[in-house]
């Protein structure tokens, strides 16, 4: 008996380190460390390509939309739901904006409004069904995804590039970052640049991070995701919080859709295929738990970057065949999931031992 009593003691001591850190911080810490290790490893092994700042900025440029969409996804996941319609909404937004700009000679301001309106509409309808009618978020947003994908082809079947001058000018606008340029193969100095979408993405991340950290609503998301019952007892309007999380996610999918549209400059039914899964994967890698209550947008941001860094590593390692990307992403996802599951299980044990 005395032996069995002794056994948990070292565990509890070990657990103190773990339990001093909140769930959110611990998982965030893992993500950021993994990203930096991976990037430094890439620099050491692959060499030159990854040393150029532009490589890093290209990852940002290509994934500004994914960052924005993943933020929305993280918020919904923190609240304990899921939204798999975001990829469809992104495709629908870029198709609608493309059709409006090209066939109806629209202006850019209105097209932004269209993007926001589509995202908001999806968010409101899905949020209402999930929060107030108690239908499972997975089914509702699955239908939302079907609907968005179908509507995209109903709006226009064929992919096409947008020729609208004002839009093309906006699309090609590049914000040059001084001092980080590099010399290309011809010996010419090329400035490092980012696109407008990246600025939008960074603003979204910072604003939402502050909201989640310090606003009443933001803390409400965590409370509802962690335990709806006790959130209700704390006087939080659980239904409204869930509703708002879905509305926010829809709105962010709208914004993300426009940023995506600004990056690709075309409308096509096959745009953003599988984006919802990438967004979920980024959120998970970033330390958001699908059970809700745990997550951090900075982590999501790094999740997107890690996901794409590994893609870059794979393609620059000469494994250019299309299937390697899928397999590596899946492998990484698997790794993170298992790590998460193990870490959380140990933490639970530690807390149990402590009490």
């Amino acid at each position, binding site marked *: 008996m005395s032996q069995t009593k002794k056994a948990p003691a070292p565990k509890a001591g070990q657990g103190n380190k773990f339990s001093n850190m909140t769930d959110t911080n611990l998982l965030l810490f893992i993500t950021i460390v993994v990203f930096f290790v991976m990037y430094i490893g890439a620099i050491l092994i692959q060499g030159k390509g990854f040393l150029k700042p532009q490589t890093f900025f290209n990852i940002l440029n290509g994934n500004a939309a994914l960052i924005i969409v993943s933020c929305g996804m993280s918020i919904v996941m923190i609240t304990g739901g899921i939204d798999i319609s975001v990829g469809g909404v992104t495709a629908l937004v870029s198709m609608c904006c493309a059709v409006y700009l090209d066939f109806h000679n629209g202006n850019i301001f209105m097209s932004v409004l269209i993007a926001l309106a589509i995202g908001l509409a999806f968010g409101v309808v899905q949020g209402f069904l999930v929060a107030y009618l108690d239908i499972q978020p997975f089914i509702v947003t699955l239908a939302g995804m079907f609907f968005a994908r*179908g509507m995209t082809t109903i709006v226009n079947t064929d992919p096409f590039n947008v020729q609208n001058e004002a839009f093309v000018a906006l699309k090609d606008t590049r914000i040059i970052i001084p001092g980080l340029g590099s010399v290309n193969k011809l010996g010419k100095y090329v400035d490092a640049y980012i696109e407008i979408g990246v600025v939008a993405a960074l603003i979204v991340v910072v604003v939402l991070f502050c909201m989640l950290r310090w606003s009443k609503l933001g803390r409400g998301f965590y409370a509802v995701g962690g335990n709806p019952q006790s959130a209700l007892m704390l006087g939080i309007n659980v239904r409204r919080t869930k509703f708002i999380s879905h509305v926010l996610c829809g709105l962010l999918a709208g914004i993300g859709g426009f940023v995506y549209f600004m990056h690709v400059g075309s409308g096509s039914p096959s745009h953003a295929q*599988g984006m919802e899964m990438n967004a979920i994967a980024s959120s998970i890698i970033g330390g958001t738990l699908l059970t809700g209550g745990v997550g951090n947008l900075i982590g999501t941001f790094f999740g997107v970057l890690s996901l794409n860094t590994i893609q870059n590593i794979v393609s620059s390692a000469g494994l250019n065949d299309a299937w390697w990307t899928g397999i590596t992403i899946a492998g990484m996802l698997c790794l993170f999931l298992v790590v998460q599951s193990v870490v959380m299980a140990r933490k639970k044990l530690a807390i149990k031992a402590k009490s």
Partner: protein
Amino acid sequence: MTQSKEIKKPSSGLAARIFRQQMFIPLAALFLLALFNFIMDPSFYRISFDYNSVGNPVLSGNIISILDAGSELAILAIGMTLVTAATGGQDISVGAAIAISGSVVLRVLCGTNSRPDTLQAPIFVAILVSCVVAMLFGAFNGMLVAYFRIQPMVATLILFTAGRSIAAWINNNELPIISDPSFGVFGGFIPGIPIPTPIFIAAGCMIVIALVLRFTNLGLYVQSVGINESSSRLNGLNPAFIKFLTFVVLGLCVAVAGLIKVSRFSSINYSVVAKDIEMDAILAVALGGNALSGGKFNMKASIIGAYVIQFLATTLYKFKVQSTALPAYKAVVVILLVVLSAPKVREYLARIGKQIRQKTHVKEAG
């Protein structure tokens, strides 16, 4: 209407009981679709007897094509129902897993050459290998869910992202084509029998699962794990193993569906084969009125749900809806169905019904 309800109270009770039945939703949906087609175009139900290009007798018609094309979905719905009931989550990797198992079948049959003139291995060996591989992938998903306690949707997300890539990798990204007609039997017709083979295969699967549910405790155990995991452990069950088992069963269903899928074309296109079928399979379970959060299930309702989805798709194709636009219509139907079957809405409707009845009672009394 109100009068008939008033004459006898039991009759209204009966109506309510029918409405509350789980089979009500899929059957009502099937009936509505059938009625709609009958009104729009009675010739929808015509079945004609023909000879195909090889000279086999063949039955053709919309009903036959619904039963034929719905086979894979019905088979998947069986496994998906079990997984949903036991784990309270869904497997979203079945489409990708079909790509893998189909790819394995072709790989075994073709050997190293991607366009062989003769089969390099007996067909049953290929089927056996693909079953084992699909069950292994099912076991992988099951392990993550049951032993690592990852939510099913997230755990299967891994295979969902990697599956089609693995399928391409198995065949070195080549597109093997099998010219031997004997392989086409599983997705086409057995010579001399005018009914498509997939219908027989689906029927066989249904009979097997019916026997399993009838003569083993699988159904009971799955439901008890889904309803309350810890209490079923206290009753001596092993919840983790049962969850694991349901994923392996789903793997077997995937292998059968994959065989039919590749046999239809005697080839495979990794990125397109069985695309979005996972969503349809989950939909079939939901349409069958099964709670997606686990617990009790009704296998018959799920299978009927699968055929309802195929019926809907065939109906829409008949009205010249583009296949890419199909999801939008499907989504509307899904939303209508889930809204109608949501407990909140049902309660509300029931309350309104009660109020109407009470009013008429008051009138009668007055």
